[in-house]
């Protein structure tokens, strides 16, 4: 048994050495392709695989015309079509996942449709690889599929957030319809993501979320307005500090603190002295964010432990 392991280790080490030697020999060809668009000379099967691996790794670090040359190369070689075929039809999940991952490295826009379909794959690894690759492709057409995958928990929400952040502003027009979807989780997800990707021009639509029937959506709307909201949204946020759900009141207080709304200090201070723990703390911290000295004075006047703590954290006491 030990002998078998030693032999196997030696075999793998030889393989790895050979792979590195082959790669070193191909680096010049790869660089000329990337930087000058030079067509590689005829290569044997093993060399072509090694070159493909090398270019796939380089593609992860690059964007722009240099990256486009890698995509063109793989498309001419038929690699993209082959990987799409494997992703859609291989029996083993790991093969489908590996193909989905490689498509993200190669980065062809033509793979977006296949990768969106892969978000429905029964194998979680395939779905995650597809989600990651859609983020790398920066494919706006994948926005709705990614959002739906997060809502259905087919993908971890953090991965979807990352992918949509990679896509950036082009995702926004495709997120807006989510604001009126029947599914409250999808509405909440759309609100959250618009808050991350959008700007003041989306704030009015997000403000409508403060009046949603779902507390989940109302809370996300308050958080989003803390990032992209402005003076026009302050009255609605102040009203939201009276919401019957503590999580919504907490989010609204945080947003008012982020927006530095002086006119809300009085109502926030009242809440800091008498609401549930998390809400009171959020209100106190909002007062301290708006005016640290005011927080310190009100802490002394009211004896509110939350205001004392918030003023302390703001470095006044």
């Amino acid at each position, binding site marked *: 048994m030990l002998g078998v392991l030693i032999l196997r280790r030696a075999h793998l080490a030889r393989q790895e050495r050979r792979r590195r030697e082959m790669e070193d020999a191909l*680096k010049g060809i790869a*660089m000329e392709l*990337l*930087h000058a668009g030079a067509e590689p000379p005829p290569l044997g099967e093993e060399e072509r695989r090694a070159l493909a691996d090398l270019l796939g*790794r*380089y593609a*992860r*670090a*690059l*964007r*722009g*015309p*240099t*990256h486009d040359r890698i995509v063109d190369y793989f498309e001419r070689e038929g690699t993209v079509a082959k990987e799409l075929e494997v992703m859609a039809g291989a029996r083993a999940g790991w093969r489908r996942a590996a193909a989905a991952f490689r498509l993200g490295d190669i980065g062809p826009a033509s793979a977006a449709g296949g990768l969106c379909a892969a978000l429905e794959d029964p194998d979680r690894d395939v779905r995650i690889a597809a989600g990651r690759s859609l983020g790398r492709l920066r494919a706006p057409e994948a926005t709705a599929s990614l959002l739906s995958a997060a809502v259905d928990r087919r993908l971890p929400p953090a991965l979807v957030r990352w992918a949509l952040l990679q896509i950036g502003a082009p995702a926004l027009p495709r997120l807006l319809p989510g604001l009126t979807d029947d599914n409250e989780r999808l509405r909440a997800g759309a609100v959250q993501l618009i808050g991350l990707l959008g700007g003041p021009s989306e704030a009015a639509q997000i403000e409508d979320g403060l009046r949603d029937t779902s507390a989940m959506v109302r809370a996300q709307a308050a958080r989003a307005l803390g990032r992209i909201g402005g003076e026009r949204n302050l009255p609605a946020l102040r009203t939201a500090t009276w919401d019957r759900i503590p999580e919504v009141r907490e989010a609204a207080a945080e947003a008012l603190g982020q927006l530095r709304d002086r006119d809300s200090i009085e109502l926030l201070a009242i809440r800091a002295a008498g609401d549930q723990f998390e809400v009171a703390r959020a209100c106190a911290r909002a007062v301290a964010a708006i005016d640290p000295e005011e927080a310190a004075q009100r802490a002394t006047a009211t004896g509110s432990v939350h205001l004392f703590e918030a003023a302390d954290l703001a470095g006044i006491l």
Partner: protein
Amino acid sequence: MSDGKPTILVADDEEDVRELVSYRLTRSGYDVIDAVDGEEAFRLAAEHVPDLMVLDVMMPRLDGYELTKRVRAEESLRSVPVILLTARSQETDVGRGFEVGADDYLKKPFNPDELVARVRAVLGRR
């Protein structure tokens, strides 16, 4: 400088990125010295006094921010321009780069054409 060509020090712990950046800068007419981590980069910078440094932020032993601070504190290297190259692209990360004394900031994945343009722009300002 050697042979009239500006010398650029490239530091990144990822071999692929180092190769891509070095190849492109060499092709664009620069002499390139490369380093695999922050400590080696500082040592080589002190020895060769490059005309510009391209530094990854997330490096072992000494990250790009700390290396830039050290470069700015070192008499012989204080005026060497620094371009930070990194996957970290939040506003606070970018701000921190400029706070420690970097001259420019390029996000990964990067466009080699853009890197060369920024190198030329930074060297042109000297």
